[in-house]
Protein backbone atom coordinates (compact mmCIF):
# COMPACT_ATOMS: atom_id res chain seq x y z
CA UNK A 1 0.00 0.00 0.00
CA UNK A 2 1.40 3.39 -0.92
CA UNK A 3 2.17 5.95 1.77
CA UNK A 4 -0.84 8.26 1.97
CA UNK A 5 -0.23 11.98 2.41
CA UNK A 6 -1.68 13.83 5.40
CA UNK A 7 -4.21 15.55 3.14
CA UNK A 8 -5.38 12.24 1.63
CA UNK A 9 -5.89 10.77 5.11
CA UNK A 10 -7.81 13.84 6.28
CA UNK A 11 -10.06 13.75 3.21
CA UNK A 12 -10.77 10.10 3.94
CA UNK A 13 -11.68 10.89 7.59
CA UNK A 14 -13.95 13.69 6.40
CA UNK A 15 -15.69 11.23 4.07
CA UNK A 16 -16.65 9.22 7.16
CA UNK A 17 -13.69 6.80 7.49
CA UNK A 18 -13.11 7.57 11.17
CA UNK A 19 -10.60 4.72 11.63
CA UNK A 20 -8.16 6.40 9.22
CA UNK A 21 -7.48 9.03 11.88
CA UNK A 22 -5.32 6.35 13.55
CA UNK A 23 -2.82 6.85 10.69
CA UNK A 24 -2.47 10.51 11.62
CA UNK A 25 -2.07 9.61 15.30
CA UNK A 26 0.66 7.07 14.53
CA UNK A 27 2.46 9.56 12.31
CA UNK A 28 2.60 12.41 14.84
CA UNK A 29 2.32 10.86 18.30
CA UNK A 30 6.04 10.51 19.08
CA UNK A 31 7.04 13.85 17.63
CA UNK A 32 4.18 15.56 19.47
CA UNK A 33 5.07 13.73 22.66
CA UNK A 34 8.75 14.77 22.42
CA UNK A 35 7.72 18.38 21.96
CA UNK A 36 5.29 18.27 24.89
CA UNK A 37 7.72 16.47 27.17
CA UNK A 38 10.26 19.22 26.55
CA UNK A 39 7.63 21.87 27.27
CA UNK A 40 5.94 20.26 30.26
CA UNK A 41 8.85 18.21 31.69
CA UNK A 42 6.52 15.40 32.73
CA UNK A 43 5.54 12.16 30.91
CA UNK A 44 2.02 11.93 32.32
CA UNK A 45 1.13 15.57 31.57
CA UNK A 46 2.68 15.33 28.10
CA UNK A 47 0.57 12.27 27.21
CA UNK A 48 -2.59 13.86 28.57
CA UNK A 49 -2.08 17.09 26.61
CA UNK A 50 -1.16 15.10 23.48
CA UNK A 51 -4.39 13.12 23.71
CA UNK A 52 -6.34 16.34 24.18
CA UNK A 53 -4.58 17.88 21.16
CA UNK A 54 -5.49 14.94 18.90
CA UNK A 55 -9.13 15.14 20.03
CA UNK A 56 -9.19 18.88 19.31
CA UNK A 57 -7.61 18.29 15.91
CA UNK A 58 -10.19 15.59 15.07
CA UNK A 59 -13.11 17.82 16.02
CA UNK A 60 -11.67 20.78 14.08
CA UNK A 61 -10.65 18.97 10.89
CA UNK A 62 -13.37 20.79 8.95
CA UNK A 63 -11.68 24.12 9.83
CA UNK A 64 -8.30 22.99 8.50
CA UNK A 65 -7.52 25.08 5.43
CA UNK A 66 -5.12 23.37 3.12
CA UNK A 67 -3.15 26.56 2.47
CA UNK A 68 -0.73 25.49 5.24
CA UNK A 69 0.82 22.12 6.05
CA UNK A 70 -1.17 19.82 8.32
CA UNK A 71 1.89 19.43 10.58
CA UNK A 72 2.09 23.21 11.15
CA UNK A 73 -1.64 23.36 11.93
CA UNK A 74 -1.42 20.37 14.29
CA UNK A 75 1.70 21.62 16.12
CA UNK A 76 -0.03 24.94 16.68
CA UNK A 77 -2.84 23.04 18.44
CA UNK A 78 -0.26 21.08 20.47
CA UNK A 79 1.70 24.21 21.41
CA UNK A 80 -1.41 26.19 22.42
CA UNK A 81 -2.80 23.24 24.41
CA UNK A 82 0.50 23.03 26.30
CA UNK A 83 0.42 26.76 27.05
CA UNK A 84 -3.17 26.48 28.32
CA UNK A 85 -2.16 23.50 30.46
CA UNK A 86 0.83 25.36 31.88
CA UNK A 87 -1.17 28.45 32.74
CA UNK A 88 -3.98 26.37 34.30
CA UNK A 89 -1.41 24.57 36.43
CA UNK A 90 0.05 27.95 37.36
CA UNK A 91 3.56 26.71 36.80
CA UNK A 92 4.24 29.23 34.13
CA UNK A 93 2.03 31.67 32.38
CA UNK A 94 1.89 32.38 28.68
CA UNK A 95 3.73 35.66 29.09
CA UNK A 96 6.71 33.93 30.66
CA UNK A 97 7.01 31.48 27.83
CA UNK A 98 6.76 34.09 25.11
CA UNK A 99 9.27 36.50 26.66
CA UNK A 100 13.02 36.25 26.07
CA UNK A 101 15.50 35.85 28.88
CA UNK A 102 18.44 38.17 28.31
CA UNK A 103 20.93 35.79 29.80
CA UNK A 104 21.06 32.04 29.54
CA UNK A 105 22.84 30.82 32.66
CA UNK A 106 23.77 27.15 32.53
CA UNK A 107 27.16 26.85 34.21
CA UNK A 108 25.88 25.39 37.54
CA UNK A 109 23.71 22.85 35.76
CA UNK A 110 26.61 22.13 33.38
CA UNK A 111 28.97 21.07 36.17
CA UNK A 112 26.40 18.66 37.61
CA UNK A 113 25.44 17.21 34.21
CA UNK A 114 29.12 16.84 33.26
CA UNK A 115 29.68 14.73 36.39
CA UNK A 116 26.78 12.45 35.41
CA UNK A 117 27.62 12.09 31.70
CA UNK A 118 29.88 9.54 30.04
CA UNK A 119 30.21 11.29 26.67
CA UNK A 120 29.29 14.41 24.75
CA UNK A 121 26.04 12.90 23.40
CA UNK A 122 24.75 12.21 26.91
CA UNK A 123 25.98 15.59 28.08
CA UNK A 124 24.21 17.53 25.31
CA UNK A 125 20.98 15.51 25.66
CA UNK A 126 20.86 16.12 29.40
CA UNK A 127 21.74 19.78 28.98
CA UNK A 128 18.80 20.23 26.57
CA UNK A 129 16.55 19.28 29.49
CA UNK A 130 18.21 22.02 31.57
CA UNK A 131 17.45 24.72 29.02
CA UNK A 132 14.36 26.90 29.61
CA UNK A 133 11.22 25.24 28.15
CA UNK A 134 10.99 27.75 25.32
CA UNK A 135 14.56 27.02 24.21
CA UNK A 136 14.23 23.23 24.27
CA UNK A 137 10.84 23.49 22.52
CA UNK A 138 12.32 25.49 19.65
CA UNK A 139 15.33 23.13 19.42
CA UNK A 140 12.89 20.21 19.27
CA UNK A 141 10.87 21.85 16.46
CA UNK A 142 13.99 22.76 14.48
CA UNK A 143 16.01 19.56 14.85
CA UNK A 144 13.45 16.77 15.40
CA UNK A 145 10.45 18.08 13.48
CA UNK A 146 12.58 19.62 10.69
CA UNK A 147 10.58 22.83 10.79
CA UNK A 148 11.79 26.01 9.18
CA UNK A 149 12.29 29.10 11.35
CA UNK A 150 9.27 30.59 9.61
CA UNK A 151 7.05 27.64 10.60
CA UNK A 152 8.31 27.80 14.20
CA UNK A 153 7.52 31.50 14.25
CA UNK A 154 3.96 30.82 13.04
CA UNK A 155 3.38 28.10 15.62
CA UNK A 156 4.84 29.87 18.64
CA UNK A 157 3.75 33.39 17.77
CA UNK A 158 7.33 34.59 18.33
CA UNK A 159 8.93 36.83 15.73
CA UNK A 160 11.29 35.25 13.21
CA UNK A 161 14.18 37.22 14.74
CA UNK A 162 13.39 35.96 18.25
CA UNK A 163 13.21 32.35 17.05
CA UNK A 164 16.63 32.76 15.44
CA UNK A 165 18.02 34.43 18.57
CA UNK A 166 16.79 31.52 20.73
CA UNK A 167 18.29 28.95 18.38
CA UNK A 168 21.66 30.72 18.29
CA UNK A 169 21.71 31.32 22.05
CA UNK A 170 21.00 27.65 22.72
CA UNK A 171 23.82 26.57 20.44
CA UNK A 172 26.24 29.15 21.83
CA UNK A 173 25.43 28.24 25.44
CA UNK A 174 26.02 24.54 24.77
CA UNK A 175 29.14 25.31 22.73
CA UNK A 176 30.59 27.18 25.72
CA UNK A 177 29.86 24.12 27.88
CA UNK A 178 31.52 21.82 25.33
CA UNK A 179 34.59 24.07 25.28
CA UNK A 180 34.63 24.38 29.07
CA UNK A 181 34.63 20.61 29.57
CA UNK A 182 37.05 19.97 26.70
CA UNK A 183 34.65 17.71 24.81
CA UNK A 184 35.89 19.17 21.54
CA UNK A 185 39.39 17.83 22.21
CA UNK A 186 38.06 14.37 23.00
CA UNK A 187 36.34 14.18 19.63
CA UNK A 188 38.93 15.87 17.43
Amino acid sequence: MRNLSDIEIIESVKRGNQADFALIIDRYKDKGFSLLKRMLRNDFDAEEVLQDSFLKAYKSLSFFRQDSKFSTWFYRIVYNSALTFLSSKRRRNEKDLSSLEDHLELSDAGVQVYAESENVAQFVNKMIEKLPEKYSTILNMFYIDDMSLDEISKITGLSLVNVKVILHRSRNALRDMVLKHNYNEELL
Partner: protein
Amino acid sequence: MRHISDEILNKYIDNELEGEGLSELNEHLKICSSCLARLKALRIVDQQFRMMETFHVSGDFTQNLMKKIEKISFHYAPKKSYFFRFVVALFLVLTAAILIAAILAVKASVPAVPSEPAWYKTAFDAASSKFSDILSSYKDLFSSRSLSIVGSGLAFIILVSIYIVYESFKEAKGRLR
Protein backbone atom coordinates in the same frame (compact mmCIF):
# COMPACT_ATOMS: atom_id res chain seq x y z
CA MET B 1 43.08 40.50 16.26
CA ARG B 2 39.30 40.74 15.82
CA HIS B 3 37.53 37.43 16.33
CA ILE B 4 34.59 36.07 14.37
CA SER B 5 31.22 36.87 15.96
CA ASP B 6 28.86 34.16 17.24
CA GLU B 7 26.29 35.28 14.67
CA ILE B 8 28.68 34.65 11.75
CA LEU B 9 29.63 31.23 13.14
CA ASN B 10 25.96 30.29 13.49
CA LYS B 11 25.29 31.47 9.93
CA TYR B 12 28.17 29.28 8.78
CA ILE B 13 26.64 26.27 10.56
CA ASP B 14 23.28 26.98 8.88
CA ASN B 15 24.94 27.34 5.44
CA GLU B 16 23.76 30.94 5.25
CA LEU B 17 27.23 32.31 4.59
CA GLU B 18 28.46 32.74 1.03
CA GLY B 19 30.72 34.81 -1.23
CA GLU B 20 33.05 37.30 0.38
CA GLY B 21 31.84 36.56 3.93
CA LEU B 22 32.64 32.88 3.52
CA SER B 23 36.13 33.47 2.13
CA GLU B 24 36.90 35.98 4.91
CA LEU B 25 35.86 33.42 7.51
CA ASN B 26 37.99 30.68 5.91
CA GLU B 27 41.02 32.98 5.81
CA HIS B 28 40.55 33.93 9.46
CA LEU B 29 40.17 30.32 10.58
CA LYS B 30 43.60 29.52 9.08
CA ILE B 31 45.31 31.89 11.47
CA CYS B 32 43.02 31.92 14.55
CA SER B 33 42.97 28.73 16.64
CA SER B 34 40.50 30.25 19.12
CA CYS B 35 37.80 30.85 16.47
CA LEU B 36 38.52 27.45 14.96
CA ALA B 37 37.94 25.79 18.36
CA ARG B 38 34.69 27.75 18.79
CA LEU B 39 33.51 26.67 15.34
CA LYS B 40 34.39 23.02 16.00
CA ALA B 41 32.57 23.07 19.33
CA LEU B 42 29.56 24.68 17.69
CA ARG B 43 29.57 21.98 15.02
CA ILE B 44 29.67 19.28 17.71
CA VAL B 45 26.65 20.86 19.42
CA ASP B 46 24.79 21.11 16.11
CA GLN B 47 25.51 17.44 15.33
CA GLN B 48 24.37 16.36 18.80
CA PHE B 49 21.19 18.42 18.47
CA ARG B 50 20.48 16.57 15.20
CA MET B 51 20.71 13.30 17.11
CA MET B 52 18.48 14.64 19.88
CA GLU B 53 16.46 11.99 21.65
CA THR B 54 12.88 11.38 20.46
CA PHE B 55 10.57 10.27 23.24
CA HIS B 56 7.91 7.59 22.73
CA VAL B 57 4.34 7.46 24.01
CA SER B 58 2.97 4.31 25.64
CA GLY B 59 2.30 1.39 23.28
CA ASP B 60 -1.51 1.48 23.53
CA PHE B 61 -1.79 5.25 23.00
CA THR B 62 -3.35 5.07 19.52
CA GLN B 63 -5.77 2.29 20.52
CA ASN B 64 -6.97 4.15 23.64
CA LEU B 65 -7.33 7.43 21.77
CA MET B 66 -9.30 5.82 18.93
CA LYS B 67 -11.68 4.32 21.51
CA LYS B 68 -12.27 7.84 22.88
CA ILE B 69 -12.82 9.19 19.37
CA GLU B 70 -15.33 6.41 18.63
CA LYS B 71 -17.23 7.29 21.82
CA ILE B 72 -17.64 10.99 21.13
CA SER B 73 -20.83 11.88 19.35
CA PHE B 74 -19.06 13.88 16.67
CA HIS B 75 -18.70 12.01 13.39
CA TYR B 76 -17.80 13.14 9.94
CA ALA B 77 -20.74 12.00 7.82
CA PRO B 78 -20.15 11.32 4.14
CA LYS B 79 -20.98 14.44 2.18
CA LYS B 80 -24.33 14.33 0.37
CA SER B 81 -24.51 16.02 -2.98
CA TYR B 82 -27.94 17.69 -2.92
CA PHE B 83 -27.19 19.59 -6.12
CA PHE B 84 -26.57 16.34 -7.99
CA ARG B 85 -29.81 14.88 -6.62
CA PHE B 86 -31.71 18.00 -7.67
CA VAL B 87 -30.36 17.78 -11.24
CA VAL B 88 -31.25 14.07 -11.46
CA ALA B 89 -34.79 14.73 -10.14
CA LEU B 90 -35.27 17.59 -12.62
CA PHE B 91 -34.05 15.37 -15.45
CA LEU B 92 -36.49 12.60 -14.46
CA VAL B 93 -39.48 15.00 -14.25
CA LEU B 94 -38.64 16.50 -17.65
CA THR B 95 -38.26 13.03 -19.19
CA ALA B 96 -41.64 11.98 -17.79
CA ALA B 97 -43.29 15.15 -19.15
CA ILE B 98 -41.77 14.64 -22.62
CA LEU B 99 -42.86 10.98 -22.57
CA ILE B 100 -46.46 11.91 -21.72
CA ALA B 101 -46.49 14.61 -24.40
CA ALA B 102 -45.16 12.12 -26.96
CA ILE B 103 -47.84 9.55 -26.04
CA LEU B 104 -50.51 12.22 -26.41
CA ALA B 105 -49.15 13.27 -29.78
CA VAL B 106 -49.07 9.66 -31.04
CA LYS B 107 -52.56 9.10 -29.73
CA ALA B 108 -53.86 12.21 -31.50
CA SER B 109 -52.33 11.14 -34.82
CA VAL B 110 -53.82 7.57 -34.80
CA PRO B 111 -57.48 7.43 -36.03
CA ALA B 112 -59.94 6.04 -33.52
CA VAL B 113 -61.03 2.40 -34.10
CA PRO B 114 -64.59 1.68 -33.03
CA SER B 115 -64.26 -1.23 -30.66
CA GLU B 116 -64.97 -2.14 -27.05
CA PRO B 117 -62.40 -0.17 -25.00
CA ALA B 118 -60.48 -1.97 -22.22
CA TRP B 119 -60.80 -0.58 -18.67
CA TYR B 120 -57.21 0.73 -18.62
CA LYS B 121 -57.74 2.37 -22.01
CA THR B 122 -60.76 4.18 -20.65
CA ALA B 123 -58.79 5.29 -17.60
CA PHE B 124 -55.88 6.43 -19.76
CA ASP B 125 -58.24 8.31 -22.07
CA ALA B 126 -59.83 10.03 -19.08
CA ALA B 127 -56.40 10.98 -17.66
CA SER B 128 -55.09 12.24 -20.98
CA SER B 129 -58.24 14.27 -21.65
CA LYS B 130 -57.86 15.85 -18.18
CA PHE B 131 -54.18 16.61 -18.93
CA SER B 132 -55.20 18.11 -22.32
CA ASP B 133 -57.79 20.28 -20.54
CA ILE B 134 -55.17 21.56 -18.06
CA LEU B 135 -52.70 22.15 -20.90
CA SER B 136 -55.25 24.09 -22.93
CA SER B 137 -56.24 26.20 -19.90
CA TYR B 138 -52.54 27.10 -19.40
CA LYS B 139 -52.30 27.80 -23.12
CA ASP B 140 -55.25 30.19 -22.81
CA LEU B 141 -53.70 31.81 -19.76
CA PHE B 142 -50.44 32.55 -21.56
CA SER B 143 -52.02 33.51 -24.82
CA SER B 144 -52.50 37.14 -23.82
CA ARG B 145 -49.47 39.35 -24.62
CA SER B 146 -48.85 40.69 -21.11
CA LEU B 147 -48.78 37.21 -19.58
CA SER B 148 -46.31 36.07 -22.20
CA ILE B 149 -43.97 38.88 -21.17
CA VAL B 150 -44.36 38.00 -17.47
CA GLY B 151 -43.72 34.35 -18.30
CA SER B 152 -40.56 35.22 -20.20
CA GLY B 153 -39.42 37.38 -17.30
CA LEU B 154 -40.04 34.59 -14.83
CA ALA B 155 -38.17 32.12 -17.02
CA PHE B 156 -35.24 34.53 -17.20
CA ILE B 157 -35.22 34.99 -13.40
CA ILE B 158 -35.32 31.21 -12.89
CA LEU B 159 -32.42 30.73 -15.30
CA VAL B 160 -30.35 33.44 -13.56
CA SER B 161 -31.16 31.94 -10.13
CA ILE B 162 -30.06 28.49 -11.29
CA TYR B 163 -26.81 30.01 -12.58
CA ILE B 164 -26.18 31.83 -9.26
CA VAL B 165 -26.90 28.67 -7.24
CA TYR B 166 -24.55 26.69 -9.47
CA GLU B 167 -21.76 29.28 -9.16
CA SER B 168 -22.08 29.51 -5.34
CA PHE B 169 -22.01 25.72 -5.16
CA LYS B 170 -18.81 25.67 -7.23
CA GLU B 171 -17.23 28.36 -5.01
CA ALA B 172 -18.18 26.53 -1.79
CA LYS B 173 -16.70 23.33 -3.15
CA GLY B 174 -13.49 25.16 -4.08
CA ARG B 175 -13.23 26.65 -0.58
CA LEU B 176 -13.62 23.21 0.98
CA ARG B 177 -10.74 21.94 -1.16
